[in-house]
């Protein structure tokens, strides 16, 4: 089969790889019909997450058709021919965390938890195509995908909706929704969101749906005007971090209070302006003394109203410096974060899509054959050609 492989930092290639086979009795093989490039894939390609091996297959936002099932897959739940979305974290459905709907914290699906335990104290669930820190599972930017514990993970989809409407249930739609849900939005609240990438777009629309009084999106008008425009179309006001003083604007818009909730939808590769910190982080990450550039996070802490909530869907992997703990403590902030518990949100969000309240396909700007994935990575990374979201077609 054709698959998108990580060969080295900054080197992604489409390679010929063996077709996946059933390994464990509850595995299934999915023939991928649509698969996407995610902002967090860029962290792997840019070398910000060190646990990649040459030949690892990337991708964690696929959907497709079940092609084969292992002997122990529950036939009442998953059969050959089912149309399914594959959530990016792999759950077992039975452990402490899965039982409490915290699927991305599953205790049983990460085959090599010792790495995460050494670095973080505990390991996350296994995640498709997302480095050996999360188990090293082959990813979904491929023509076929092996999915473990298929009967609790694969999410059956109806036939009357398109791939474009459904594929984002695998990651970014639930991620945006969970980010807004964790922001604990009340009717009179102002919500500020750093980052107008695909997750930011879904977050701001979720915040609007959850009844926020005012939603403010922050990004760079000169380099990604199309994202800012999309945010405004989704019901947000925008602040241009390049030409405006973000904290001043936020305080001014809220009578000095600051936003009730601040959401960091940027993560570890944050680019800051007018701020010495971003230079500091660039130097330290290039010297391998720091793994993240938490500029957006720091600014969110600074701007958030006292007693407010910070929600962090942006991905961080290791260690960050100059976290303003004093501000967090003295302002009494609550921080909520986590890899998305996709399985928990799929039924509700599928219903929202069916009812026509959300049509996630608006973020798609590019459709490419899988064989042009490296070009997709390139334009997505450099934000060229108005690129917001790339969907790959493995059959083309």
């Amino acid at each position, binding site marked *: 089969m054709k698959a998108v*492989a990580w060969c080295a930092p900054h080197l992604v290639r489409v390679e010929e790889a063996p077709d*996946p086979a059933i390994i464990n009795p509850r595995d299934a093989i999915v023939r991928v019909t649509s698969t996407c490039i995610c902002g967090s894939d860029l962290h792997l390609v840019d070398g910000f997450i060190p646990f990649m091996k040459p030949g690892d297959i990337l991708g964690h936002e696929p959907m497709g058709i079940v092609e084969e099932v292992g002997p*122990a897959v529950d036939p009442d739940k998953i059969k050959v021919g089912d149309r399914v979305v594959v959530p990016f974290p792999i759950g077992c459905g039975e452990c402490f965390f899965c039982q409490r709907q915290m699927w991305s914290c599953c205790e*049983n699906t990460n085959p090599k938890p010792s790495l995460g335990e050494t670095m973080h104290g505990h390991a996350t669930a296994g995640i498709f195509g997302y480095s050996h820190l999360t188990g090293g599972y082959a990813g979904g930017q491929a023509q076929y995908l092996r999915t473990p514990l298929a009967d609790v993970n694969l999410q059956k989809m109806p036939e009357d909706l398109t791939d474009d409407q459904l594929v984002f249930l695998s990651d970014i739609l639930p991620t945006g929704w969970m980010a807004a849900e964790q922001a604990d939005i009340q009717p009179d609240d102002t919500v500020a969101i750093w980052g107008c990438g695909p997750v930011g777009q879904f977050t701001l629309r979720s915040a609007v749906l959850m009844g926020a009084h005012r939603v403010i999106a922050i990004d760079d008008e000169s380099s990604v005007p199309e994202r800012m425009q999309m945010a405004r179309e989704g019901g947000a006001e925008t602040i241009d971090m390049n030409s405006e003083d973000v904290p001043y604007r936020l305080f001014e818009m809220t009578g000095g209070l600051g936003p009730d909730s601040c959401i960091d939808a940027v993560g570890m590769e944050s680019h800051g302006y007018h701020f010495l910190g971003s230079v500091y982080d660039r130097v330290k990450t290039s010297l391998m003394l720091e793994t993240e550039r938490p500029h957006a996070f720091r600014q969110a802490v600074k701007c958030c109203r006292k007693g407010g909530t910070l929600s962090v869907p942006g991905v961080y992997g290791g260690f960050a410096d100059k976290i303003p703990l004093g501000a967090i403590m003295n302002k009494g902030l609550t921080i909520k974060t986590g890899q998305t518990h996709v399985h928990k949100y799929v039924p509700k969000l599928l219903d929202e899509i069916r009812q026509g309240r959300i049509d996630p396909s608006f973020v798609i700007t590019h459709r490419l054959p899988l064989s042009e994935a490296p070009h997709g990575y390139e334009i997505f990374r450099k934000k060229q050609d108005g690129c917001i979201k790339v969907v790959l077609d493995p059959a083309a």
Partner: protein
Amino acid sequence: MSTVVSKLSDKGSINVARTERLISGALGSALLLTALSGRGAKRLTALGVGSALVYRGFTGHCHAYEALGIDTACGATASDLDRVGVEVSECFLVAKPVEDLYRFWRHLGNLPRFMSHLKEVEALDERRSRWTAAAPLVAGGLIQWDAEIVEDIENQRLAWRTLPESSVDHRGSVEFSPAPGERGVYVRVELTYAPPGGQAGRWIAKLFGEAPEQQVRSDLRKFKRLMEAREIPTIEGQSHASCYGLGQLLHS
């Protein structure tokens, strides 16, 4: 550990335990083979250390041990475990009914499904069983021992120990205790063992990442996974791209 201080040992007599001798011999031979292909100082070191290890394995005498007054040859017997045994304890929360967990463990034939070194456990009668394990450093690659269950409290506790004439010496227990509310069961495994090859064997094992502490933890986690997920998730054998060697080249 099984080190016994011996001031009376005669010069040149056997002061290295049998398993440790085997390990010495094997490591020494490997080093000598390396020396054949090595160069310079590296080759000389491999030659020197390799010959010493082979000598030590062949004669059973270690000059360093003699100088330090150590003798591992009169290693631990079953009665020594209390004095010299290494203890390992691990505990995992398993979200399944205690009856299922106890029943699975009590059927000793299931043990090789989550204890990675075990090949087979065969029940000889209600209490006694024969265990076969992989042991790469031993001739034939397998070791075998007999064990007996010394305590069996249904759904609470199971304890076993090796029979006195066995080639390995350990005792262990598994305890099932209720976790608060609906959380499931705390499964705690305790092992006391005399490390094969004494302290030296333990160091060598650690060097190769086979430290028993890690082994027990990894095995108990596999038990949890088998019970909760009904299989042990793995990526072994999954598809992988080659990058035509380009990736490795750029990566190194």
